[in-house]
């Protein structure tokens, strides 16, 4: 059994104006106390065909995580994402 189970991901503030950040409300369950933080990433899947076009928009550490059910909101500014996508080196 996996130690961590994702129970729900709800998209908040949807639909929203362009300037608002993305908000994902994540509920997960953990079977035992975790000694280390969990890392969560928001990935923009550029193409379902290949992982090559995946873009990590943001990643965040979540912790400490004792056994039990937990919730958090993962928030990413879209503007920051736009800036990031421009600054990313073009893939050939």
């Amino acid at each position, binding site marked *: *059994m996996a130690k961590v189970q994702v129970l729900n991901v*709800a998209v908040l503030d949807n639909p929203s104006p362009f300037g608002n950040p993305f*908000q994902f409300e994540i509920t997960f369950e953990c079977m035992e106390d975790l000694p280390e933080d969990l890392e969560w990433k928001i990935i923009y899947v550029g193409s379902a065909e290949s992982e090559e076009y995946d873009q990590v928009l943001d990643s*965040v550490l979540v912790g400490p995580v004792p056994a039990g059910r937990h919730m958090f909101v993962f928030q990413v500014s879209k503007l920051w994402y736009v800036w990031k996508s421009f600054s990313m080196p073009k893939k050939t």
Partner: protein
Amino acid sequence: MKLLKPSWVSHNGKPIFSVDIHPDGTKFATGGQGEDSGKVMIWNMAPVLRDEDEKNENIPKMLCQMDNHLACVNCVRWSNNGLYLASGGDDKLVMVWKRAAFIGPSTVFGSSSKLANVEQWRCVTILRNHTGDVMDVAWSPHDVWLASCSVDNTIVIWNARKFPEMVTCLRGHTGLVKGLTWDPVGKYVASQADDHSLRVWRTMDWQMEANITKPFSECGGTTHVLRLSWSPDGQYLVSAHAMNNSGPTAQIVERGGWKTNMDFVGHRKAVTVVKFNPKIFKKKQKNGSAPKPGCPYCCCAVGSKDRSLSVWLTSLKRPLVVIHDLFDKSIMDISWTLTGLGMLVCSMDGTVAYLDFSLDELGDPLNEEEKNSIHQNIYGKSLAITSTEAQLSTTIIENPEMLKYQQERQSSAQLGPSSAGPEASAPKLNSVMNGESLEDIRKNLLKKQVETRTPDGRRRITPLCIAQLDTGDFSPALFNSAPILPSGSSMSNQLTSQLSSDSSPGPASSLGLRPGHDPMLTSPPAGAATKGPEDNKDGAKSGLLLTSASKIEPMKALDSRFTERSKATPGVTATISSIAGLVPLDSRPKDGGGVSAPKDVKAKDDTSSDSEDKMASINKNLSFSKRKPELLMDGDGVVEKRKKGRPRKDKMAAPMAQPFMQMTPPAEREPSRVAAPPAALKLPTPSIKKAFSLQVSMEPSVFLEVENEVSLIAGSKLSQLRCSRDGRDWNTLLPSSVVTAAGSSDVLAVACQDRMLSVFSSCGRRLLPAIQLATPASALHCSAHFVMALTAGATLSVWDVHKQKALVKNESLLSILSGADTTVSQSLLTQQGVPVIGLSNGKCYCFSSSLETWTLIADKGDSMVQCADFRSCLPTHDAPVSSGPLAVMQGRNLNAGRLASRLSSTPHHLQQSMTLAFLENQLASALTLQSAQEYRYWLLIYARFLVNEGSEHRLRELCQELLGPVHKSAATAWEPTTLGLRKRELLREVLPVIVENLRFQRLFTEYQDQLELLRNK
């Protein structure tokens, strides 16, 4: 009959493959296809049953939805106790779900606030073994096992008490296995597959009992499932799709002889599912008419691909009702309520239908007690304990003490089921946690959430804990509460696993369990082999110090022909073969070179046992030359280590090495020089070697080193005995070579070549003048302050050193050494000074000094021992299995019940008497051995067995004996203690066992009161 199609039960139009009603009737589960995964849903039953509940918005319809399965769910089944739900799907997995009792609210994955789970069901185990889609799962009666079948042609039996442990995998089907059903008595499991066969498997040994093919030969594999069913009385098994005269039928298979004479005919297409009503019915008594003793009958529902459903009563020739066009597609599954009056049917078209019958239509259902009595009549199974739950409502508990015990028992049996209780019938929609609803939590989540930066600049969020995990995770105690196991009992598996884990340390087991040998032949060495770790365990616990029991004899058991050869050349071959038997014990703790030794031995042993007599000498020479260098190396290595006087901390190594050390033969160093004439000798003597050492006890650690012929003074050779005890040494000189030595934490004894036996205290003080033995010593044991000597003339003596008295005086072994080639394979002295002798024929005797006779305490060949089936009476929690002299001598006694599996056909009463006889034997043996721990252990098992089987007279006698006379009088000869255990304390332990069967509540009350009376005196 009423019929309802609740439209709200749906998987959004996707097919529903399975439906199952919870045993308490308050909810039901459906399984099928989800959006892009498998889906299991749990629904509230109340809106199905009652119109007003359906309209009431506050009563939730959907209780929980689980999307964990990656692909379509083919089967959902509740455990019989209602605590667990098992689901199997196309993702090859079986998931076991349990309700999370104290966990906060949650939502369905991907949903926003609207669709909330009212109940929380958490996947507690994923069972992975199948390599194909899982088609059906089934819980055994009492939830001992969970069976799952798959398109990989196998059936896997899981240990439901210890998920995810697999009990076995049943192979044999050559096609996709699509249905499973358990015999209600638990003796069989039946499966139907696409290979045109229905197979019945025994739960005793998991072998195939029957393979029924004839009615299925014309069948095509056209159905998605083949859910067969066993009638509640166990007499009939009804298959899904069968063919008769090219018409689809449901074949009726009779339990007796697996005859296939009858079938249910009428469906136009293949039968996909058959489900028996869990109740047995009898004719409804009409008012006024004379009560006629009608034969009880069963009710069976048949669903087919032709979208129609038929309900049959076994008392009628024609179906009770046939419903056509209930669905648009094939019927997939049927589930009856436990009351027997309601039925849910699901279909591939994604809908379910509920059928409600009345008593007038079906008849009067028999209650559990009547059902049990039918089972008992047919199968002889006493279900006394199982019926207590049902009786509880009818039997009046007469005693507050009894009530207390009952409540304790129930509360311990139901750790979590408060969640599964009837309170769930109308749960509130808004689950509240800490006075805050999920809505409130969500609103403030972003504000409450603490966000920090880690030193490397990353964001770190501290999540909000919305619910503690309920700690009662997958409590096996719940499953253990099933007290009696129908017939096979999963205990056997637990036992065997225990057995293997017990005996696995050391290659000894591989030696004992070598394939291709008659079990009777190998059992003595197996006993000797298990002795090693056993010995060691006891030593570590500072319990019984069982000094090297397996003297020279194991070779006799290994190969009986060694005996003949040893007669011819007593010295050489005998010692070689004894080494062959014992080297593995010693070589185990070593790495490298030692590892190859067991292999060699095995090879050697095999060849020698294969060889003919004329080959023997060649063989002997060969093996001799081959073994010699290795042995020398082994021996030297160990001796060297010992000489440094470094006490070995390795607990395994020391006691195992001990028998080897004592037996290191002089053959390699000097020729055998046994002084006494061999003619009079019945038992072999250890030969003399230059030096040896042995560990006498672990705690405190005492080492004994012997060096023979150290110095020559006036023509006589002196030997030195050196002993180190916790770092302090003493030594003494002896006028003759030391043959063997033994010791306990209290005394040390050495036997010399001149047949003198000397006894020293642990500090080296001579306690007794040298004792002259009649013949050379064969084996020597010390335990506590007792010394036991077994002489080559087959006589046995035991002395109490403290009292300076003989407990056993030159008792001859001839009376037990009957038969030409029986010899002593094992001997030991218990802590209480009771000598025990194990013979190569598997019998084991101890000398009772009070009876002044030999008493048989164990017999490996006794069929009674092997047939006894008391496993259901073993303590449920993993109580320490008795480890004492009795267990040691009986090879941990786990052979008991080995044959029970082959006796599936023996009548129950026969097995019952055999078990009774066996248990009584054990009790008596433990008593003779003065092994208090074991006596208590077997007494409790015995009591439990009596309670389970309901033999009141014996139970009463047992209690009476333990209680003794209530009023003191001078004439009573009653002893208040036995083996140092207070009898009344024992009775206090037995009483809670008695409570388990309400039938004995009067007995319980009687003795409880008397005990109280005595205590107040």
